[in-house]
């Protein structure tokens, strides 16, 4: 069997990350690492070089958007696809953000497992 897809999840909602990890890892194709803060997430991104990052936008300390900017600045992480997760984003805000941090995937919380898997697969397909 091929190596599982490494997913880094950066979200301050610990129970949410916990359940996303549990859900995704019921599928042997996925391996999930979680970080509760933006700066911790950045460090992990550099060390484990994930295939995909699930990034919450509204977090204390560093916002998801800032984390994304820093990931783009670093050659080691700039090509990692990002899917933003957010509980508050509306369509117009997403469009505005597109201009600032480049076109990215957005997922509005709450989301079902099925949808999440479809979005991850679609993003990875795109990458290949």
């Amino acid at each position, binding site marked *: 069997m091929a190596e599982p897809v490494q997913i880094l999840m950066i979200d301050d909602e610990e129970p949410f990350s916990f359940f996303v990890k549990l859900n995704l890892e019921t599928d042997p194709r996925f391996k999930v690492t979680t970080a509760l803060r933006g700066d911790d997430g950045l460090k992990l991104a550099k060390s484990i070089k994930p295939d995909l990052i699930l990034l919450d936008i509204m977090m204390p300390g560093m916002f998801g958007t800032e984390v994304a900017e820093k990931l783009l600045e670093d050659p080691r992480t700039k090509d990692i696809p990002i899917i933003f997760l957010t*509980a508050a984003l509306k369509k117009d805000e997403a469009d505005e953000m597109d201009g600032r941090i480049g076109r990215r995937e957005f997922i509005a919380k709450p989301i079902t497992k099925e949808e999440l898997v479809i979005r991850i697969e679609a993003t990875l397909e795109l990458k290949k």
Partner: protein
Amino acid sequence: MEETVRILFVDDEPSVLNIMERLFLFEDYEILTATSGEEGLRKFEGSPTIHIVISDYRMPEMNGVEFLEEVYKKWPDTVRMIISGYADLDAVVQAINRGHIYKFISKPWNNTEMKVTIATALERYFLRKRNRELTESLLHKNEELRQFNERLEQLVTDRTTALMQTQEQLVQSEKLAAIGILAAGIAHEIKNPLAIITMGTEYMKSVVGDNAMLQEVADRLKQAALRADTIVKGLLSYSRQNPLSFKETDITTLIDETLTFTEHELQRKNIEVIRKYADSLPRVRVDANQIKQVFVNLLMNGIDAMPAGGSFTIRVECSENGAGKKVVQIVYADTGFGILAERIGKIFDPFFTTKDIGNTGLGLSVSKGIIDKHGGTINVESRIEEGTSFFIRLPVV
């Protein structure tokens, strides 16, 4: 005086009439004479206004009082006087008392006195005339004033009603805006826990295997979370400040599009759709997406009101609004169970719902907000067991 003053003397003695004519020879009066009451009446008929009539009492056939009473009936404005000896005083006094004779001149008369009496009588005639004119004009002015007052009152009522409606709309839109702000503020705090519940139950489902009971528990938890999310989304629609993009549109195209979305649901519920579109309808300027949202809301409400099937009549016609402006009127009439009278005033309020849980109670208030933004109106009429009709009026381009 510009008006020629006419005085009629009636006496069966031509000599008396002669004396009278001579008496007023140098006055500016037109003197008429008659030798009997009958002739006197004929003079009245054949002459312009006679201002004063002076009649002898004792005359064959018609006496002076009888003659003057006839005059009173037909020419009440003429000042009537009678000349009589004391022998006939009683009859004369009675006539005076009845108000039919102005003055009694006793025989024999003094010429100066006669002249003064006539001058006074004339003064009385013109005063009365002026008085009557003034009264009439006053009555007329009064009526004008009354009508003006009535118009003013109507105007005040109309304006007050309009003001109250505007205020109501303002309060409503402020309420909605406040809800939107609140919703945007709490959405994040609510959606995160909902996301946790959703993911948690999904995991449960994947690990409990074929334990049907636990599968069901997980399903119900997940449904509840998604339902709460629907409500939050509904609330957020109030905070959307997206500017409307108006385009000239044929309204029936939008109606047909929304019927296509809901076709499956309508068929499943055994609901017949009857379209009655008037020919050559004027175009309207609308934000197509928002207006379609309104139509879908009305269709969904109607579908919910007809669980055992029924019919939906959609009429589109040209009409006029209260201010006489041309509008397109769209009517959605269902044959559902209707809305209770005590509830009908609330159906456009946010969070008001008569449906089962899971309904936000926002559909109609959002719809009303959209129609308001188009400068239109939405109203409802309903009869229990007969159905409900929604009337939307949109201004014509």
